[in-house]
């Protein structure tokens, strides 16, 4: 009976891979459509007046953008724009991932505390919700200012940590709320069953509550990862911290008159950042839901 089992599982993976291939094809079709639309608008714009500036300075040709990849960052430099954007994107990715990890960790810890002690849920949840009304992005420069006064002994607080903090803060909220709902998801029967086994509170958490929270956790992780990425890029822009793709966006945007295609390379970097985060979360999704029936893989 071992045979059919593994056979079945292999079958399931195959359909997953197939689904993966199909969604990649769709994504490529989407990219092709955007490129086509872009060029179509430019083409139409060269004949009639559109309420949109379709000149090569504001809407460079797609091939000009691709061409711009290999331009040097500044005249005579060895590094190409592509290299600069790739390294900036990687820097931002590290910050976003750091913020995501911190936000997820705190989100889960807080959810566990709120689930465990109804008192904390009543006391903390309103604050967690209210915290989201604080426009942290707008306060970013203030946070950088505060951050500069933090001293952590040997570790030097840099502006990068402030950006990471903002990303973590934005990632934290959707996660803690989703995780709390997930931890509260087990049915009364499952809870009674565990009680009948005289399960200890930590066993209750690891053997029942965490596994049953997965269907709630996965969408929360998706939202959190997106929030961490957006938070990172926007915080980079608003604090002007060097090294990330956010700063590159402003820098290259200033050069549109001379090199209109350059800023789009940075835009591609930002898009790649979002895609990397999405890919990471999808991998997490596949891992976490590997044992669950298809229906609950929302």
């Amino acid at each position: 009976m071992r045979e059919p089992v593994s056979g079945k599982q292999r079958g399931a993976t195959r359909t997953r891979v197939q689904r993966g291939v199909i969604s990649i094809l769709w994504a490529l079709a989407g990219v092709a459509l955007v490129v086509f639309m872009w060029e179509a608008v430019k083409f139409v714009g060269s004949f009639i007046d559109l309420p949109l500036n379709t000149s090569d300075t504001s809407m460079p040709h797609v091939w000009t953008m691709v061409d711009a990849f290999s331009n040097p960052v500044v005249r005579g430099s060895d590094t190409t724009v592509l290299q600069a954007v790739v390294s900036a994107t990687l820097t931002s990715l590290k910050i976003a991932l750091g913020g995501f990890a911190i936000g997820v960790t705190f989100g889960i810890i807080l959810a566990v505390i709120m689930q465990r002690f109804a008192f904390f849920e009543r006391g903390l949840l309103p604050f967690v919700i209210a915290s989201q009304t604080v426009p942290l992005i707008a306060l970013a420069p203030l946070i950088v200012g505060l951050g500069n006064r933090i001293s952590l002994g040997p570790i030097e607080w840099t502006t990068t940590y402030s950006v990471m903090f903002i990303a973590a803060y934005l990632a934290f909220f959707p996660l803690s709320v989703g995780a709390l709902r997930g931890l509260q998801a087990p049915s009364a029967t499952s809870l009674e069953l565990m009680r009948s086994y005289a399960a200890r509170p930590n066993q209750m958490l690891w053997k029942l509550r965490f596994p049953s929270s997965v269907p709630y956790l996965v969408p929360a992780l998706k939202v959190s990862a997106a929030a961490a990425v957006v938070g990172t890029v926007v915080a980079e822009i608003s604090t002007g911290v060097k090294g990330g793709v956010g700063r590159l966006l402003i820098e290259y945007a200033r050069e549109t008159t001379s090199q209109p295609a350059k800023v789009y390379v940075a835009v591609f970097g930002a898009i790649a950042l979002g895609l990397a985060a999405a890919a990471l979360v999808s991998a997490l999704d596949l891992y976490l839901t590997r044992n669950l029936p298809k229906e609950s893989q929302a």
Partner: protein
Amino acid sequence: MSSVQTSHQAVDVQGLWKIFNEGSNNEVTALSDINLSIKPGEFISLIGPSGCGKSTLLRVIGDLTDATRGEVFIAGETAHIAREKQLYGIAFQQAALFDWRTVRRNVELPLELQGLGKKERRERALELLELVQLSDFAEHRPWELSGGMQQRVAIARSLAVDPPLLLMDEPFGALDEMTRERMQNELLRICQETGKTIIFVTHSIPEAVYLSDRVVVMSPRPGRITHTVPIELGERNEDTRETDTFYAGVTAVREALRGRSTSASPSRIEEF
């Protein structure tokens, strides 16, 4: 199984009351003055209209909810100690299997929580799956099984720690008639093989009569025991359901449920 069992009742319920929301205006007296003694190895069915407190009684016995007044002993221990010591296994109407575990690991769960070694609990789980004739599905996921198969897994799981007492709350409620009869026979076989005491909640009169040594009839508002109908069918087999004794048992329980038999012919009940 042993000194504890010979010197004590398997289950002893004394003057038990369960009142939900006591003192508030939505107070519900779910159980009133329940007295019930069950001998080791006895098969007891609880039957009665919806809301008469069958599940509540089972849950109080299992220490899943507190008694308002009165006491419950399982093999001489308080319900709380009995639960801590895993002196009973429980199965509900919903199989309540964990989707993220294989069938085998679902059966292992109670043993895992007790800290039994990997190898031992695996062996025990496979043994139990054989008992419920699901060896072939050990590595399947619960959702790949039919409702009846899932229910058998739940029964195997309730037997995992080899408890002397089984509490079963309408475990066959969701099954079709054929599957149900097969499961009843399997349950009786398991009981015979393992000598367990069983408290079985059901809505089906024939099921209660077929399975039980004693059928406990309850009535609602407030939930209480109105009759106890002893059943003496001897060894059950294919023809048991056709015998006069069986029909007489069914009639007696039905009369009791209508609240008649005490006034009509109280002695008849004792005859069985």
